[in-house]
């Protein structure tokens, strides 16, 4: 499982562009495609596994399958489950969330930005923590070491 860069900068212009250009082959930023949903699912799983590898317990996470185009984004069993997993994973690691997530009846570009921003922040802080951890016997350049 690898990390994919979240998309957190959707704008109203992206949404209006998507509304007028649904027929384009590429996935449009102003629409919620399976690539977006599966990226969120994968990133959430990535963070869960990374946290658990560092002994952070991640409670109440429910595995979620990838979504295909013929799937229906049911409000509870798909979208809210997705949001619930993001909350569970970000709460497993103590951070200040960018925006409190809720369980909406619809999705707009701001809500999806918030979901992905929560994941991005968690990833950044976690990987910063990991990269700054020192192993026994190592030292930092310029440090005074008492032998």
């Amino acid at each position, binding site marked *: 499982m690898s990390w994919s860069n979240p998309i957190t900068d*959707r704008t109203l212009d*992206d*949404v209006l562009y*998507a*509304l007028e*250009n*649904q*027929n*384009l082959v590429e*996935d*449009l930023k*102003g*629409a*919620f*495609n*399976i690539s977006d*949903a599966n990226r969120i699912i994968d990133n959430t799983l990535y963070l869960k596994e990374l946290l658990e590898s560092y002994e952070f317990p991640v409670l109440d996470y429910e595995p979620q399958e990838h*979504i*295909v*185009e*013929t*799937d*229906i*984004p*049911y*409000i*509870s*069993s798909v*979208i809210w489950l997705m949001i619930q997993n993001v909350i569970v994973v970000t709460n497993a690691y103590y951070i200040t969330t960018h925006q409190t997530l809720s369980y*909406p*009846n*619809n*999705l*707009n*570009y701001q*809500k*999806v930005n918030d979901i992905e921003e929560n994941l991005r922040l968690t990833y950044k802080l976690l990987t910063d923590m990991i990269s700054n951890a020192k192993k026994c016997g190592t030292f930092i350049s310029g440090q005074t070491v008492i032998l």
Partner: protein
Amino acid sequence: MVNVSNQYKIDINKLHRNMSSMRINLSIVDSDALDASTVSDSNAMYYSDSSTINIPHAHTNKYMTMEHNRFILDGNGILPPEVGSPIDYYQGYVSSEMSGENMRFTTPPSITINFSNYFKFTGLTFTFDRILGTYCNKMRIYAYYDDVEVYNKLHYPTAVQFVTDDNIPATGFCNKIVVEFLATYPARRRINLEYIVLGLVKTFTDDNISSTKWDRHTDLLSTSLETNVFSFNILDVNKEFNPENTSGYWRYVGQRQPVTFDYGYELSDGKTEWIRGGTLYTDDTVSIDTKDTIPVVKFKAVSILSQLTAKYYKNEYNGQLHSLYDLATDVLTFANLSPLEDGSSPYYLDPVLQTIYTPNILSEVEINKALQTIANAGLCVLKVSRNGQIRIERLDTTLLDFNMSLDNIKSTPSVVQLPIVKSIKTKYKNTTMSSTDEEIASVKNLVLTEDTTFKINYTKSTEFSMSLTGTLAVVGSPYFYSTSVTITLSGSGDFTLYGHKLIENSIDVELPVNPVGYDCVVSNELINTEHDALEYAKWIANDLFNRNSYKTDDRGYPELDTTDVIRGDTSYGNALSVIVTDYSVSYNGALSGSIKYISLLPTIDGFKICGMFNVGQDIVL
């Protein structure tokens, strides 16, 4: 009054107006076919509801799905409920199949419309997903007469709304239509069909509109039905409405064809602001004038209220109090109205009707008269809004931002002073049940060779029983309403109906208003307490106090409605608060209007015009 932009308010009052325009949509549908139709489908989504697609109405709440680029993140789409959960928003017909990359279906979804009778259609109008702009771009339509194919043709829609003006079938009739959806635009989409009109929607524009006139009058006391008539004349260049044109529309044009119309006005920036006029229905007065080179077809459309002329007979006395709200709901449910085009309720009832109770029942009258009686008893106005919604509500006297100034009118308003009212004489009615069980109706010497249905009317009664002689028998379970019963009998003999007649005692109430003048006699059968009778009398008196009535011709303001409270200049130049009671807008390439309004006297808390007094007020001479 319709909300209009600030720019419109400025531009419409310019000395030299910009261009005006109109557009009229006339549906040419067979309303009998609609009543005779049932819709079924293949491969539909769980939130699909094909049974409603033969009723034109918008689906403003769309469920979002994961089709490529369809789930637009504008916040307007709704997340679909779980299978088995209540469906809040049915979506018309939505196929479970999705088209592929090449826009085509592997297994084409389809819908079937069966009719209980045989029909011929001027065409079909399909409306697909208007919100997301997706549609079927290839379909095959079949028509069958008793399962024998009589029509089979491919069609290639290029927009969300598609009209095929083929005669279906070309000759003869059909009793089944099957529509097979073959491809979509864009690709990778399900079919999203909002509704089908069993006929055509013809749109007339300035190219073929000769002239129009929209007349409205509202009785502020609901003592008579409102007038809401739209007359329009169309240049029939292609002779589509000529009775001798065998491929024409003449035979399909008749009553109850929906008509919507809009007024356009060009603003200073060159854009046109459109104002919805009304949603009305043709009556049976279509005519064609062929004396000129280009024939002129003349239509007249009236509001839904005018067409509710079936008798309301489901009145029941049980001695219990019922609110005017419940009574109105019963009548409107009986009327079996369809939702409005935007999916909202076909009627609105002021919550104040929930606070007025009566045990009295309505007489068996037309639905529109029954609603008028309820509105009058509830001190409300009965009218139809621009989108076709029947409304019973108290008059809103909020002053609107509109001034019918001397610059906007073509001549000084003529004034008529209404006669002075000396008193309001009304009554309230107590209804009780007679203690005598007596004969209230009978049908003698019946000899029936087959089951025969009778509608028997009688004076208001309750607690019924019947007796039958000979071999006469009742078929089924008739329901006895207070003024009539529809009963099916078979055999031979006499039928006698017994019951307790309702005794209606009237008690007079008089409200003095002025020391001189005429006595206004008015009453309502639903009013049953002295308190309600006095409130009713005060309401009448307050309206009749508005004793100046003004009439003039103006420059034409399609945004104005009757019952609007606006400022109106008088011949003295002073602007009064006035209520519009009549308004007529004419169009023949340019707008013009004719208005009638009455002065709005302030209530007890407001200022008084010298020499006037409030009802019941003590005056110190």
